[in-house]
């Protein structure tokens, strides 16, 4: 039987299937279930500043509606967002501690570092709480029209450098594909100390309901076709950086995991598929991988990892082909 052991961010995983940061990893009970069903590791749900501000707003509104709670000169409500943040952070640290005491698989914490430096300092507390690694979920909204793309990119590097200077645990960075020179950014993240990069962040998207004539949210879960872009960049970067590459977005089954590993990914993060099919689905993916390896005669994951990366494959140009001209020109 194939050995699925995988080294990711210096941690030993029993297999390369990692449950991505989401509501699936928000409670110890669920994390225990994910371990029981075969997950190689979990990335805890990220704390988002936006979420805290929304809760602060909601609590403020509730307080004002309440006939008894005092809001007029309240110092407490003046800092309600700070208090909610403190509560959230405290319960997040509790989640790490408790999860670490209940499961053997690595527990990777996740911090959404969009704005202030105070979130970076939280990384130290995450380390002290026992997290095995930290995934920094960074996205700088490109709304500052006076800033160049270099300025924006520098923010990513600064965050990584700063976090690496205050923690000893491995740090990976989850980024979006929206850079003018993505490959260069990934290499620079490594230069600034990142131990891994997660490709890619998936954003909430708008949609329009043409019957009700209103703007709605698009499906929050990914679909298998979305994996192609991740596959492309994993393959392109696999031999260009030494750090680990984690494939995320659109990885929905065992076949997709194998493709990502062949392209050069160290691990694959699976989330939407578990939402759709339940934690039991993890073992199906693991078994599919194991059976495939047996079938192909691979004893270890490293025997085939990156075999079809851009640098290793014969038709490397496929990964760089963006236009469909030749394809369409051949259609008669």
């Amino acid at each position: 039987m194939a050995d699925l052991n995988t080294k990711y961010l210096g941690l030993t995983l029993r297999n390369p299937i990692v449950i991505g940061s989401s509501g699936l990893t928000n409670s110890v009970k669920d994390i225990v279930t994910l371990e029981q069903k075969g997950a190689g590791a979990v990335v805890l749900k990220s704390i988002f500043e936006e979420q805290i501000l929304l809760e602060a707003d909601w609590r403020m509104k509730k307080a004002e509606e309440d006939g008894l709670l005092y809001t007029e000169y309240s110092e407490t409500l003046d800092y309600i967002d700070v208090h909610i943040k403190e509560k959230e952070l405290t319960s997040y640290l509790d989640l790490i501690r408790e999860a670490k005491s209940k499961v053997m698989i690595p527990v990777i914490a996740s911090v959404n570092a969009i704005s202030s430096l105070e979130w970076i300092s939280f990384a130290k507390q995450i380390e002290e709480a026992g997290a095995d690694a930290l995934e920094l979920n960074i996205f700088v909204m490109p709304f500052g029209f006076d800033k160049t793309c270099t300025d924006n990119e520098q923010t990513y590097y600064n965050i990584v450098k700063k976090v690496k200077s205050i923690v000893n645990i491995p740090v990976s960075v989850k980024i979006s594909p929206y850079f003018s020179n993505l490959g260069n950014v990934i290499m620079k993240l490594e230069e600034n100390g990142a131990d891994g990069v997660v490709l890619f962040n998936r954003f909430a998207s708008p949609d329009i309901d043409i019957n009700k004539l209103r703007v709605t949210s698009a499906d929050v879960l990914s679909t298998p076709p979305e994996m192609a872009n991740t596959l492309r960049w994993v393959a392109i970067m696999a031999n260009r950086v030494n750090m680990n590459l984690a494939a995320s977005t659109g990885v929905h089954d065992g076949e997709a995991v194998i493709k990502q590993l062949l392209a050069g990914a160290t691990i694959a993060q699976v989330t939407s598929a578990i939402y759709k099919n339940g934690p039991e689905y993890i073992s199906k993916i693991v078994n599919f991988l194991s059976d495939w390896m047996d079938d192909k005669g691979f004893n270890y994951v490293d025997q085939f990892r990156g075999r079809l990366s851009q640098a290793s494959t014969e038709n490397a140009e496929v990964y760089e082909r963006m236009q469909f001209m030749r394809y369409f020109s051949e259609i008669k």
Partner: protein
Amino acid sequence: MENIIEYLKEERAQDWRNELRKGMKAKERTSRIRVSMPEEDPDVRNKSRIEVNIGLAAENAVLEAQRCIDCPDPTCITGCPVGINIPKFIKKIEAEDFAGAAVTLKETNALPAVCGRVCPQEKQCELNCFYTVKLKKTPVAIGHLERFAADWERNSGQMAVPKTEKLNNIKVAVIGSGPAGLAAAGDLAKFGYDVTVFEALHEIGGVLKYGIPEFRLPNELVDTEIEIMRQMGIKFKTNFIVGKTASFDDLKKDGFQAFFVGSGAGLPRFMNIPGENYNGIFSSNEYLTRVNLMNAADPEYDTPVISGNSVAVIGGGNTAMDSVRTAKRLGAKDSMIIYRRSEAEMPARIEEVKHAKEEGIIFMNLHSPLEYYADENGRVNRMKVQKMELGTPDSSGRRRPVPIEGSEFMVDVDTVVVSVGVSPNPLIPKALANLKVTDWGTIVVDKDSMQSSIPEVFAGGDIVRGGATVILAMGDGRTAAAGMHKYIQEKIKAN
């Protein structure tokens, strides 16, 4: 409500009120300019504990009382949480019956000298004054007049002890001796109950003593009010923590039939930023309690606070103003407010901000602390602050503070006081398993009776409101006393 309106009408129709109204035309009254509260010189007062506001002289009080036109519909009363008959007490001052004014105040307010000093009248009675609402002029100085009448009574040496019903020997407990507890105790004593007030600290007065500095509310004045309550038969037990020193069951075995919980919101909050545990960083609760109640300003005492040379107070509320002005009085060269929004968003009263500025307090608005640093002994010596700008408004309409990237800089400090709010005291909720509490940690009560989920337990003040003004807490105490009276009497009838 109809009864109250009828009562007010009858009171207004009394001859002496009619005479006063006829004595001066309304136009003449409304053309007068509001009197100013005389204040101590900022450079003198910021080096001592003397009270900032001196109080009105009698002739000025009468002049101000003449501004009140004695409206047929006194909207000012609707703004008062304890429903003081405001026109009546003001007209008593106009008639130079100062003792009568004090008696009127005490009909519904056990602590008028306190409320005259610390109530935010600009948001309550004065906000609803005819001058504010209709004439768009500065309101009658109701707060100043309240203080005048109460001070006059105290200085006259003829303080009236409110009448009480004959003692009925039914024991009731009041937990906490702050404004809510004192107001409840006063009314319960008036109903004839055998009232015992249990106080966790060694002094009676709760937040009036430990929270509000002497330069705003002299302790002596609170003690005088408490002495009157003692004379009403109320017993006080200090250093007694209900739930620890004795349980509710112990007290029930001792014969206590009902309880009023006014244990306040004494649990300080912090910001959870790096270095917040270094020596020299206090919560405002601790800092003010040490100074106000434990003589910490005196280096000869066991637990002094170090008089910092450079003191930073984090926050923009009234407690922050009390802390920063206290630091100045303890000798700080630089005593500064660090507040993340602008002055317009500060929750502190305008008067407190004005006084603080006069006294040389430095305001670093639109700044927020990021991290504290310490010397080799673990004593805070520097802090990193970040500049902020105001972003989009939150649900309350105030603009959110947003950090300005790259704007961080260091400030030398040797004392930091964190004043970013408090949580309700958790001791009582922890001691009573069946007591319902909200997400905020406040006790759930029926707002008409202040009765909790445990029938014999009533509550009010900060433990219900999360944070309240003195007068709101007192209003709760009075409502609860009425609720407790009803509950006990119905229980007696049922048996």
